[in-house]
């Protein structure tokens, strides 16, 4: 079957994990990688016989033939890359906190209109992909006035891109909790934990709710859980929703598939799996696959 051709820009932790996930895609073929040096990610691409450059994104544009680009560089570089991709007619999935296009969290707002109408979709952040669906589910059920999340990731899984964009990370995630999750107001905290063996990605989600109906909340969260597990099988509840006054506490853990980094780095999987999920839906539409 014909596949759509994709490129990865920024083969760091996230980009290299994407590379491995795309190898399994029935609808997308990874055709090109754009790096800035002979990094581990580039070496892996080279070994697999994937064409690459370590010079500039312009090489990719000049070469042509790319339908979809995954940008996992950083907020700054994506702001430069986005107009270049747009001009070249390449559908962009932004895995940085640049957020030039609208936020996309597949379990919540991936619609045909979004795929048809936009040329650049932002995948929020790993914490956003992990927590927005839960906040959205609780909001639909009982109306969330405030949501606060604490995302703990292992130090090993947080590369320089994440470390140098930590403010953008928390701010972008908070905005997505409001815009997509539906919370009236949101606050996000991220903690890097260096414990050995590395911790699994885990997220604590506090929501202040208007209607403290815990049965309804648990039902809504369970349904959402099933939706997410379709594209992130290692997404599980660590603590099912518990309530004190009007504050609901829910904790989730994300175990990855262990593609590039070991399974503890669920924070990579949750955003790369979401991006692949969006890209495949886009590809299926364009390829006319039902």
């Amino acid at each position, binding site marked *: 079957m014909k596949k759509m051709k994709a490129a990865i820009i920024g083969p760091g932790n996230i980009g290299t994990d994407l590379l491995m996930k795309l190898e399994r895609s029935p609808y997308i073929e990874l055709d090109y990688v754009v790096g800035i040096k002979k990094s581990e990610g580039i070496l892996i691409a080279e070994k697999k016989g994937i064409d690459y450059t370590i010079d500039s994104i312009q090489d990719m544009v000049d070469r042509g033939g790319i339908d979809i680009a995954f940008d996992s560089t950083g907020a700054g570089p994506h702001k430069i890359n986005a107009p270049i991709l747009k001009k070249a007619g390449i559908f962009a999935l932004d895995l940085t906190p640049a957020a030039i296009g609208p936020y996309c969290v597949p379990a919540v707002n991936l619609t045909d209109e979004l795929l048809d109408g936009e040329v650049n979709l932002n995948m929020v952040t790993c914490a956003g992909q992990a927590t927005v669906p839960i906040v959205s589910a609780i909001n639909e059920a009982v109306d969330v006035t405030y949501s606060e999340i*604490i995302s703990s990731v292992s130090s090993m899984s947080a590369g320089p891109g994440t470390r*140098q964009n930590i403010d953008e990370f928390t701010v972008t995630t908070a905005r997505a909790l409001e815009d997509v999750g539906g919370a009236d107001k949101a606050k996000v905290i991220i903690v890097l934990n260096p414990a050995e063996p590395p911790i699994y990605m885990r997220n604590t989600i506090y929501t202040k709710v208007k209607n403290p109906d815990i049965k309804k909340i648990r039902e809504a969260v369970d349904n959402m859980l099933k939706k997410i597990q379709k594209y992130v099988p290692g997404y599980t509840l660590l603590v099912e929703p518990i309530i004190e006054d009007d504050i609901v506490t829910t904790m989730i853990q994300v175990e990855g598939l262990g593609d590039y980094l070991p399974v503890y780095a669920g924070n990579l999987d949750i955003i790369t799996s979401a991006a692949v999920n969006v890209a495949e839906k886009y590809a299926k539409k364009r390829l006319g696959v039902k």
Partner: protein
Amino acid sequence: MRKIILTDTTLRDGSHSVSHQYSLEEMKEIAKGLENAGIDIIELGHGDGLTGSTINYGFAAHSDIEYIKAVSSVLKKSKLAVLLVPGIGTIEDLQEAKEAGAEVVRVATHVTEADVGEQHIKAAKKMGLFTVGFLMMSHMVNKEIVLQEAKKMESYGADVVYLTDSAGAMLPNEVSEKISYLKENLSIPIGHHAHNNLGVAVANSLAAYEAGADYLDGSLLGFGAGAGNTPTEMLVAVLDKIGANINVDLYNIIDAGDDVLAPIIKNKGSKLPRFNSDSLIIGYAGVYSSFMLHAKRAAKRFDVDIRDVLVELGERNAVGGQEDWIIEVAHELQKNKKE
């Protein structure tokens, strides 16, 4: 003789001891007492730093900006400091704090994660703030790693770097070894922030001084997380006694504790942090001191032994900021108990 710069954190670390419920008036009075005694730097705000006012860490009575504006309006000489923990607060929050009157920032990261503070230290310097790198939970790694991270902070432009014993888990010989090593290998001054969980905060501060630290922390009557910080009064008395060169007057700092802070504590119905079995376990297990009051609450909520909660958090290597793990651990202990 070298000058020792004292930072008092009654209004920031001590904020944990009143569950972040200082009134603006109380902060102003305490700050005046501290300035009158000659304290060089007064740190204030939510115990977990800028925008720490949350469900996870407890909501404060006022916003950081309100506190900064109130205290800055009464200070003439002492420098006003804020704490910024990257991952909780942002550069934008720091900019607002500066506009409200902050002159010093302490950028705090876990001891192995200095690079998450790179942007913040650089931005703080650009804003013209006196910038302190604050390496939390410094007991968790050896001196070589502390140095490697301290060097990063130095390279970002920090004016001072702190060996911060957030868990009150260090003993004087360890403080001495780490401070000497930093002193030998860095060109910026070194500071130390102690907690009294193992009853050695004053001894640790003294060891830090003797090993070459130029910046030391205290808080009035030891007000602070866990078993509290080094009592500023006691620190001043000890430094005075050994003839260290400090700007703080002993009688006046004693008065600030007795005449200003003590009545406020009494009025609020708060307790002075002091040695108890909970703080002892925190120091012993090497757990972030601010976890104490949260763990007490969680132990009650889930009907489990607080000591089990704290020891388990120590075993999981929880770091500063992971107060949410307390709930998870207590919840799990309760589940296991039922089974």
